[in-house]
């Protein structure tokens, strides 16, 4: 774990679950797997709070537990998955994606599940239907069956999945450590049970919610029902899925993001039509391609032609031209794998990621160090190894400036120096000094920078909020007063009087604060896009090796 990751995790935990969980979480991240006792002792917190925090973390899938390193029979050990904690940064994007794919219902389902960590289907359906009904006009209501169908759509497309079974439980009555001995294979804490190991991972349970479709839920009891975690119907009848919990399948969302990234990159690089062709190819191979595959299954030009939506009106010869164009493009999004069937084409998923990551690196160098440094950087990326003199010549930059830029890049670790001695004594006069750019380590470094950036953004936002706490509280109070006055039907003059309690400069300050916070928040969202790209590139580079 790097310092930056730990810091960002701490801030995220703090923001979503409060300071207590943050303390337990960061301690667990720093020290790896720990037993409950050890956590309590080392954090100096009350047992009760530590237990609650662990419950919260486990509920949200951020903490795994299992028999410790010492094998079964020993106390349960807890371990925080840093990756999962960092996904919290991406919550808005998951929800937005669900909205764009499955409308408001899908959005609310994903949002509820993300906020609660895991939920039973019946509970999620009920909460979402209630929330939708509340937003509707009077007299309308949301049918449960509609929400159920949205839910099953999400499950069918694997955006939701069942939570992995807890293996170590089963028949474990008392909280003694000996219960672990009864469990057949104790899950090592390093490899928690994957959701996919469950054959029923994407199977919907039979729930008897269908009979009770419409139900109005007006505002008076909506508040109580919102938190309804107990899967109980009004008549106390069991719903049938009490112990089946669902969680968001982040991996599936990431695949979707990756595909979208490739499609939009093609649209930027070439044009809309070619991006539609790539979209069609990706959609066709969605099911057949493994999530970690380097490229999609080969598709023949004929197949692609048939699968193209007729609304694009792309003729066969035009399609062939586009495919040739795509294959010839230096970004290598699409590759040709054979000539049969009018040519077999694949989408180079990993290469596309690598190229996108490279473009990100280049643009970072360009924005931070100017376009001429970026020229040197690109030159090194293309030519792999160059001597200083060659860099100056190829980049066509005066020697002094080129040196300056090269050394700056070197000191920022964006460029590496490789020594190749001609003689074993490493004498500088008889040594080649080759400058080079290694993409993967540089991407890793940039990723850490991104984590640091987000942490800084969050901290800045907290600082801004703290500085203006008084104003914020005042405006909140006045808003509350206004709302209550409006419901009681106060006169407009009265309302205006209350409104004027915030002076003009205060109003200005509040406006400025809102602007700042909005900007900081959007920056977080955008940095996360870079984080996602770099993370998936690093992951893909790890699997291709």
């Amino acid at each position, binding site marked *: 774990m790097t310092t930056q990751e730990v810091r960002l995790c701490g801030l995220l935990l703090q923001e979503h679950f409060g300071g207590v969980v943050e303390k337990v979480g960061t301690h667990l991240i720093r020290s790896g797997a720990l037993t409950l006792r050890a956590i309590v002792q080392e954090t100096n917190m009350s047992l009760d709070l530590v*237990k609650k925090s662990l419950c919260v973390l486990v509920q949200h899938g951020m903490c795994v537990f299992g028999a410790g390193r010492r094998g079964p029979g020993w106390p349960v050990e807890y371990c925080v998955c840093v990756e999962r904690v960092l996904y919290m940064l991406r919550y808005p994007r998951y929800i937005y994606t669900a909205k764009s794919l499955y409308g408001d219902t899908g959005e609310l389902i994903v949002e509820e599940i993300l906020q609660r960590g895991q939920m039973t289907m019946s509970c999620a359906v009920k909460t979402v239907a209630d929330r939708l009904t509340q937003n509707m006009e009077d007299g309308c209501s949301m049918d449960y069956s509609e929400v159920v169908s949205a839910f099953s759509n999400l499950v069918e497309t694997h955006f939701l999945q069942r939570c992995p079974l807890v293996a170590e439980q089963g028949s474990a009555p008392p909280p003694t450590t000996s219960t672990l001995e009864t469990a057949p294979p104790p899950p090592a804490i390093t490899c928690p049970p994957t959701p996919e190991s469950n054959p029923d991972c994407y199977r919907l349970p039979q729930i008897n919610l269908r009979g009770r479709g419409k139900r109005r839920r007006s505002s008076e009891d909506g508040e109580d029902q919102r938190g309804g975690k107990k899967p109980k119907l009004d008549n106390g009848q069991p719903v049938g899925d009490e112990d089946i919990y669902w969680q968001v399948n982040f991996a599936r969302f990431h695949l979707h993001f990756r595909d979208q990234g490739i499609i939009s990159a093609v649209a930027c690089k070439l044009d809309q039509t070619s991006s539609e062709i790539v979209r069609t190819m990706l959609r066709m191979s969605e099911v057949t391609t493994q999530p970690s595959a380097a490229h999609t299954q080969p598709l023949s030009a004929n197949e692609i032609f048939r699968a193209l939506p007729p609304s694009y009106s792309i003729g066969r010869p035009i399609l062939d031209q586009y495919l040739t164009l795509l294959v010839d493009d230096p970004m290598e999004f699409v590759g040709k794998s054979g000539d049969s069937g009018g040519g077999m084409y694949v989408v180079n998923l990993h290469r596309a990621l690598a190229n996108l990551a490279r473009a990100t690196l280049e643009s970072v160098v360009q924005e931070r160090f100017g376009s001429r440094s970026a020229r040197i950087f690109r030159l090194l990326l293309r030519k792999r190894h160059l001597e200083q003199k060659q860099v100056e010549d190829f980049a066509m930059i005066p020697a002094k400036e080129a040196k300056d830029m090269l050394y700056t890049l070197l000191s920022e670790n964006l460029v590496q120096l490789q020594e190749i001695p001609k003689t074993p004594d490493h004498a500088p006069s008889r040594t080649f000094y080759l400058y080079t750019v290694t993409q993967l380590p540089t991407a890793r470094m940039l990723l850490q920078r991104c984590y640091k950036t987000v942490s800084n953004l969050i901290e800045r936002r907290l600082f801004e909020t703290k500085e203006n706490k008084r104003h914020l509280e005042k405006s909140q109070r006045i808003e509350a007063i206004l709302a209550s006055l409006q419901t009681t039907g106060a006169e407009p003059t009265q309302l205006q009087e209350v409104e004027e309690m915030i002076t003009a400069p205060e109003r200005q300050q509040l406006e400025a604060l809102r602007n700042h916070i909005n900007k900081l928040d959007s920056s977080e969202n955008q940095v996360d896009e870079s984080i996602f790209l770099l993370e998936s590139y690093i992951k893909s580079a790890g699997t291709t090796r």
Partner: protein
Amino acid sequence: MAGRGRGMAAFTFRVENLGISRANMPEARRGPGQLFPILECKPVPLEPGPGDDYMLSLKQEIRDTMRQLPCYLKPNAAKSEVERYKDKYAKERIQIKDEEWTPDWNRLPKELMPKANLPRKKSALKKKPKKLTSQEKDSVLSKLSELEKTDNVNADEEKEENVSENKKKGDDDNDEDEKEEIEGEEFDEEEVEEENDYIASYFDNGDDFGAGSDDNMDEATY
């Protein structure tokens, strides 16, 4: 530049070989960089993308709602020296909120379950047989008295009166004893709860909650 001269002299080769001449020797670096270096290039403005505004509002909304959810843990408020009037209401409010979330204990290690549930369960177990015995006692007593009546038909009337009186007394005593026992038990539980401060725990899995008697006890704690 004596230092530099000495440095140059230390090289056993001509520095010019490296492409460095005296004129374009870069400046030496002194110490670590600044904590907040001056930005030479201003950051580019954010790139407006589709759905950015929506994601922004989503982000802020999530942040606000998460704060109200039960998984947002607040540290245990330190018990103040002075008992305040508002404490009671504050606690009640917290409890109402807390009841919202009860994790599925089947999915969590058993050791995480708050202990508050355990004594209560025990007491429930204990109480049941007690109640039974009280009923049984009644029936046994009535049986006994019947038996006594039938047995003592032949005995002296004085004796019979004595016995019945004694029996009555005994009956009353018994009842009182029982009451005391139950009360004592309840009291014990209260003590335990107060000691651990588990009453404010929202990991109450609600199973034995709402049974009526337990509710009353909870109220009595405050």
